[in-house]
């Protein structure tokens, strides 16, 4: 009996923190898995229009085209809407080469199933989008997806 009594000291024992690293590592791995490092710097404004009849984008087989007015810090490029592919501004006539370059970076077995994702600012004119679509038809890249943000235009 006296053996047990000895252990009783008046102080509260410290909380065991040995499992803290495990918990933190678990969180760490979660974030490492879901993280996608941004691969291209945005040069254009991107306020996407709203839509709710949407499908999910298959990221491994898509190439992105951005369009919109030059964003904050890039005002020197003017106020007209511009097209961005990869890291730089592209002219309508140059879309072909820029897209071909991007397409070669995809996995070979997916290169025939490429989907073009259009991320266009909502204030852009439809004319520019039409020009892009004409170029895509020339290239025979017929699958495309207009990226939207969740919501509905009627709500506001």
């Amino acid at each position: 009996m006296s053996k047990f009594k000895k252990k009783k000291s008046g102080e509260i024992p410290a909380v065991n923190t040995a499992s803290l690293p495990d918990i933190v590592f678990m969180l760490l791995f979660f974030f490492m898995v879901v993280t996608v490092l941004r691969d291209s710097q945005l040069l254009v404004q991107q306020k996407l229009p709203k839509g709710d009849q949407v499908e999910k984008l298959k990221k491994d087989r898509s190439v992105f085209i951005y369009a919109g007015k030059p964003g904050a810090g890039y005002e020197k490029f003017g106020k007209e809407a511009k097209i961005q592919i990869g890291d730089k501004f592209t002219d309508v006539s140059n879309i072909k080469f820029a897209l071909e370059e991007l397409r070669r970076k995809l996995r070979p077995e997916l290169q025939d199933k490429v989907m073009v994702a259009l991320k266009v600012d909502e204030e852009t004119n439809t004319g520019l989008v039409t020009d892009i679509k004409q170029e895509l038809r020339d290239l025979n890249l017929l699958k495309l997806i207009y990226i939207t943000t969740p919501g509905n235009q009627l709500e506001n």
Partner: protein
Amino acid sequence: MARRASPEVNAGSMADIAFLLLIFFLVTTTIEKDKGIARQLPPKIEDTPDVIIKQKNLFIVNVNKHDQLLVEEELMDLKDLRQAAIEFIDNGGAPSGSPEFCNFCKGKRSPESSDNPDKAVISVQNDRLTSYKMYIAVQNELVAAYNFLRDRESERLYGWKYTQMKKAIDEGDITDEKRVESIQEKLQTVQDLIPLKLSEAEPKKSGS
């Protein structure tokens, strides 16, 4: 119990290191949420045969440069577009007994409007100065009209909603491969029943 042959490495700073990494990934994370309206462009063919579409099977949506809607030659608000499109596709105007008769349509069966969903074509015409916002809003409403009818038909035939099942398959919620296959077949059936026939005319020059 405590047989200390070799001294243990002090792991006290492990948590700190892990926290540091954690914070880095927390800050750089952008969880992918790209979703959008998918569309198939028509292939480029040099001389396309002229297909004659009857006036009554054509639903013309015009958007001008001030983002105003002209639907079948009448001004319309965006909020009414979905219902108007549903009524047009679902009309089923072909007389019963004819091969084009639509036996599942619940519309008004007006002879002035579309024969059946397979014949019905929606044509959108934009101005070059139409805003992209309006363009997407119109596309969204029209796709919504088709989705509404596909949901209705898949519920009648199979007891589930077309859009919900399609989403479940896209996100990989259904793992049984045989089930996925049979559902995809059913989705195709619904798609054939109500095919998405959206035509886009090349935009006119601004101001015309």
